[in-house]
């Protein structure tokens, strides 16, 4: 089975972490003995205070960093057994959004979005069409030729989301996507992520914003000092829409 193709076996989670630890200092783990699954189509919050390990966890899921111990499985494949090229291919099925946007300030909006499409090896005409489509989805239809660095924070985050959505990924990873935005822009971004989730993509959002999680309830995974300290039960339908959260229960 190609590593980027969804498994036909619905029992296989999209992402599985088994007893994963990551150390930047021997005495202070960034993550310690973390295990959980992310089902297909799920909307998941990863929460915790600053330094709890949220970003490290996202990097492990995105395969940007390897675990020091334990295993990460994507589509049932142990990523430790994959070659570097295969890891790159796997990343193409993931869209990433960061608090600080990670846009190239001196490139146009279109060129920034095009980056995630170029690596797929698709034609320039397809890229141009898809950029227009995705810009319409994020409400920036007329901004294709604007220089990304000249946009407001909210607009830049929309461009970042557009870049993440452009290749139609199976999984969206968002690290504090609303952290530097005003309430209106934050709402817009969350609406977008929920819409994408409603269309079948799995969405993982790292956030410390309790109000956000309360306003848009989904499954929550809580970290503290690198340890998994709580996990709310998975909702019935993993489409992510609307079910009130059953509350976070302690684990471990």
């Amino acid at each position, binding site marked *: 089975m190609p590593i980027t193709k969804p498994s036909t076996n619905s029992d296989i989670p999209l992402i599985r972490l088994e007893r994963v630890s990551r150390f930047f200092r021997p005495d202070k783990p960034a993550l310690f003995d973390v295990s959980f699954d992310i089902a297909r189509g799920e909307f998941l919050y990863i929460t915790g205070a600053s330094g709890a390990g949220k970003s490290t966890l996202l990097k492990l899921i995105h395969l940007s960093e390897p675990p020091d111990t334990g295993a990460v499985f994507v589509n049932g494949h142990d990523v430790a057994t994959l070659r570097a090229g295969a890891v790159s291919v796997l990343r193409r099925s993931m869209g990433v959004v960061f608090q600080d946007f*990670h846009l190239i300030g001196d490139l146009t909006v279109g060129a920034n979005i095009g980056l995630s499409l*170029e690596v797929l090896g698709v034609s320039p005409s397809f890229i141009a069409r898809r950029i227009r489509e995705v810009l319409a989805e994020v409400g920036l239809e007329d901004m294709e030729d604007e220089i990304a660095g000249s946009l407001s924070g909210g607009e830049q985050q929309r461009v970042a989301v557009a870049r993440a959505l452009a290749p139609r990924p199976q999984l969206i990873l968002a690290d504090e996507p609303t952290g530097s935005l005003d309430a209106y822009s934050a709402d817009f971004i969350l609406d977008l992520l929920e819409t994408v989730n409603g269309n079948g993509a799995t969405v993982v959002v790292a956030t410390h914003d309790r109000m956000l999680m309360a306003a848009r309830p989904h499954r929550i995974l809580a970290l503290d000092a690198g340890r998994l300290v709580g996990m709310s039960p998975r909702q019935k339908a993993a489409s992510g829409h609307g079910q009130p959260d059953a509350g976070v229960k302690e684990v471990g």
Partner: protein
Amino acid sequence: MEAKPTGQFIYRAAHILLRATGGIRRRPWLHLLSTLTLAAAFLSFAATLTVARNLNHLIDRWVGNSEMTVYLKDTSTADLERLRNAIAAIDGVERVEVIRPSAARQNFARDLGAFGDLGATLPEAAFPASIDIHLSRRLADNDRERHALSARLSKVHMVEEVEVYDDWFKRLSAMSTMGRTASWGLGILAAIVAILVVAATVRTGVAARRKEIAVLRLVGATETYVRTPFLIEGGIEAAIAMGIALFCLQQMMNHVDAVVGGIMPLLGGGRILRLESTWLLFMVVGGLLAGLVGARLSLRRLEEA
């Protein structure tokens, strides 16, 4: 969403090429400066190579004319023929050519090039008959045997003088060796300069595009996809620099030809030689490779990024 494998390869190659040329377009002055620096280094190498080639050619012409010339006193045709036959029969003599006074005068006028008319005004009597002796390589390279033959011929009563060209050979050989060494030295220096300049330029590009590289990796670009544009950038820059250097060299050679081309025959060198097309191709490819090596070196830092 990905295209078919063949299409993917073509489109990725096109995107990589666009990324490489885009890198040059985004920092035109930096690339122009480094290209001109490279062109200057390549030009000094190519010019020295051209000088060395012409020196070699000069030596070949001298050596190719004859390894020994026997100048004769006033001699009858019959004696001249006998002496010619006798020399031709000597072991190690490959060919013998009799130069009569009229032919000697013509050769002199030809060798004067633009001043040929001057030679034509001199009387034939000013040009003694001579015999050019072409030796086998074994004998030509053996100083002792060559001088022994010269001494033997000097004792013949009709021989005025035997010229073995030792001084000329030694001087020209020394100059040729110097020219060859200088061209090799400058070639190596030019390659080092190319590698360092391209490495510095590409390193600047990598630093300026660090964020772009990070984003490319985030969206699933392979290391090959990330690095290849920088390699192409370095290769293109060095190849263009070599092209500029060779164009300048051609212009310089045109100028040199116009100024000293007429008196070159005086030096026995005939026309001024230029680098052959195979050499030009070799140098452009060499420049390209030096650029690739320079870019590759600068990309080592990407591994740490």
